[in-house]
């Protein structure tokens, strides 16, 4: 044994070095290849399909931007975009606000914190389908909340947002925030716990009030957490599909349609694959438009910090 180690075969050192160098690449290669094909390859394919007159099956004739013109001529697409703006904005803002508030309240060294923490986090363990189905029953005027309040004697109680075309999209916000706020809370709580205690102690010595400490020290120092939460919430918002499907199925009519449900119904049930692909590409652009500035700004910030 010892001789083998002390007298290596000529060249085995370089082989080992070569192996140490190549092995990680070799192990990562399949994953890389998979993501190149199945993520970027299919993105490219979808972009190409959006430039073709594809209907039932893919068709590779080139028609330029005709599908995009048809898309922006479609009233339903505009409804979907408007709904995405409402839903995306409220979902992200309320999710962050409620999540942060819960985290700060839980951070006050209260009793049974662990229990409360898991209680708020549990909705995240559910799939959006379950959340959607549950809220569908809760918000249904003839089954849920309205029915309950009326049977308790509040005859004038009315909460019919689910069946009101002008309000239906807000029920999606309610259910979405209910599900995600706990997760955002967990993110913020981890951030709060990561803050150096000595800074806070120093501020207390200087006589800063608790409110000032939170406003001037703690919340600004959680910038990276805000950033992560924002990215997670906004991509959930843009690709949101299952929640709407289970809660309103895009209804009443198509009043609560989102781009994802629009894409599904045109590409898969109406045999308009090209139009569906065009709407999918637009979704990608929306996501990029939201995220790229954030990522860029955050990257610049980090370089400045260095």
């Amino acid at each position, binding site marked *: 044994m010892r001789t083998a180690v002390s007298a290596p075969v000529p060249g085995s050192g370089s082989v080992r070095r070569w192996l140490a160098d190549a092995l990680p690449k070799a192990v990562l290669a399949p994953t890389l290849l998979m993501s190149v094909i199945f993520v970027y390859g299919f993105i490219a394919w979808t972009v190409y399909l959006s430039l073709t007159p594809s209907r*039932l099956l893919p068709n590779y004739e080139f028609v330029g931007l005709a599908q995009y013109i048809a898309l922006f001529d479609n*009233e*339903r697409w505009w409804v979907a975009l408007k709904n995405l703006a409402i839903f995306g904005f409220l979902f992200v803002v309320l999710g962050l606000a409620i999540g942060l508030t819960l985290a700060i309240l839980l951070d006050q060294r209260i009793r049974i914190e662990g229990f409360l923490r898991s209680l708020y986090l549990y909705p995240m363990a559910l799939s959006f389908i379950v959340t959607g189905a549950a809220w569908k029953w809760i918000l249904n005027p*003839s089954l849920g909340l309205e029915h309950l309040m009326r049977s308790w004697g509040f005859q004038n109680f009315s909460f019919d947002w689910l*069946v009101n075309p002008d309000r239906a999209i807000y029920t999606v916000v309610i259910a979405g925030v209910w599900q995600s706020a706990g997760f955002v809370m967990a993110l913020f709580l981890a951030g709060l716990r990561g803050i150096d205690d000595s800074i806070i102690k120093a501020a207390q010595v200087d006589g800063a009030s608790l409110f000032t400490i939170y406003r001037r020290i703690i919340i600004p120092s959680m910038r990276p957490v805000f950033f992560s939460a924002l990215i997670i919430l906004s991509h959930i918002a843009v690709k949101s599909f299952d929640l709407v499907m289970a809660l309103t*199925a895009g*209804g*009443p*009519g198509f009043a609560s349609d989102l781009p994802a449900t629009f894409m599904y119904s045109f590409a*898969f049930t109406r045999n308009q694959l090209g139009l569906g692909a065009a709407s999918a590409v637009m979704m990608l652009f929306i996501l990029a438009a939201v995220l790229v500035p954030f990522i860029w700004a955050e990257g610049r910030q980090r370089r400045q910090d260095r």
Partner: protein
Amino acid sequence: MKRLLFAAALGASLLGSTLPAYPAEEVEVLHWWTSGGEARSVAELKKMLEAKGYKWKDFAVAGGGGENAMTVLKSRVVSGNPPTAAQIKGPTIQEWGAEGVLANLDDTAKAGTWDSLLPPVVANVMKYQGHYVAAPVNVHRVNWMWVNPEVFKKAGAKVPTTWEEFATACDKIQKAGMIAVAHGGQPWQDSTVFESVALGVGGADFYKKAFVQLDQAALGGATMQKAFSVLRNIQKCTDKGAPGRDWNLATAMVIQGKAGMQFMGDWAKGEFTAAGKTPGKDFLCLPAPGTKGAYTFNIDSFVMFEQKSAGAKAGQKALAEAIMSPEFQEIFNLNKGSIPARAGVSMAKFDQCAKDSTAEFQGSSKSGTLVPSWAHGMAIPASTQGALFDVVTQFFNSDMSPKDAAQKLAQAGKTK
């Protein structure tokens, strides 16, 4: 090393050859009939084919309207490995035909004299460029009105035969504290109701002009506006919980006497019979107001895909023959609630609703009032159908005027 490579190559080729697309005698059928009565109906077909010595390979993809099944089917066809047959109906058959992947059933059809057994309107749906490519299994009538007579009696209302009478009946039932119309506010249900209204208001010729030929004048004209205003009246007769409700829950409201009537195809009958109700006594099946003598049909069919091997082709032939046999059509439709698509099946075991449906089917076929149901994908391509759905459902869920709605419908009719 070389030997290893050789062995691997041999292994791969063996693996390849032992996994041919299909053993010759296997018949693979894609469908989405997975619930109670429907599953029993498919089991009958399986039994008949197994009796003929073929192996049945069930390819059921669940999910109500068959959207999931269609997605699976597309990937199978694109990869050059289509099933023997798939449950496809209406103009979608033409779209598949245009892709050049369907089998020609003319020999089987000729031997079985399909032309004399099927009404020409139905036969046309089964053909692509004059050749049979599909076999029909049943006929559903869509323009039914399901009535709970007890509710009408309590409210002192008369069961309506025109849309004017309908308005009075609705008033009386609502005044008596009950729901007049049980409805589920989903786009296809809104359009199912609207299609019966348009047929009742404008008649079969108008219906064909508007929803089969997509004639701009008919889609945007005064008759269509009238149909929309009737739809508005119906909407006012529904309850607040309607949006998003499934059709069978709406049917349950009629069964339980909470609501007076429902406009729905004859698959609703299954819900009544499952609840132990007798037609003519506990519930009535009547044509929707103004549509007596006219018939909107919804036909399920199996489309045959081109097969490579001779054995698979023989299996396909046997499948088509079995589907068209009177035995299968009888037992299948007894389970499903529809009526046989072909002539020459004994109706002795069927209930009164099915007998009425058959009589009207044959009568309307002769008088030219047998029309395809556009809300159920029998008249126009899926893209146009979807665009019309959007207009009808938007009208139903807003305070749009009938005039604007008709204009939008004409615009939607241009969707290719």
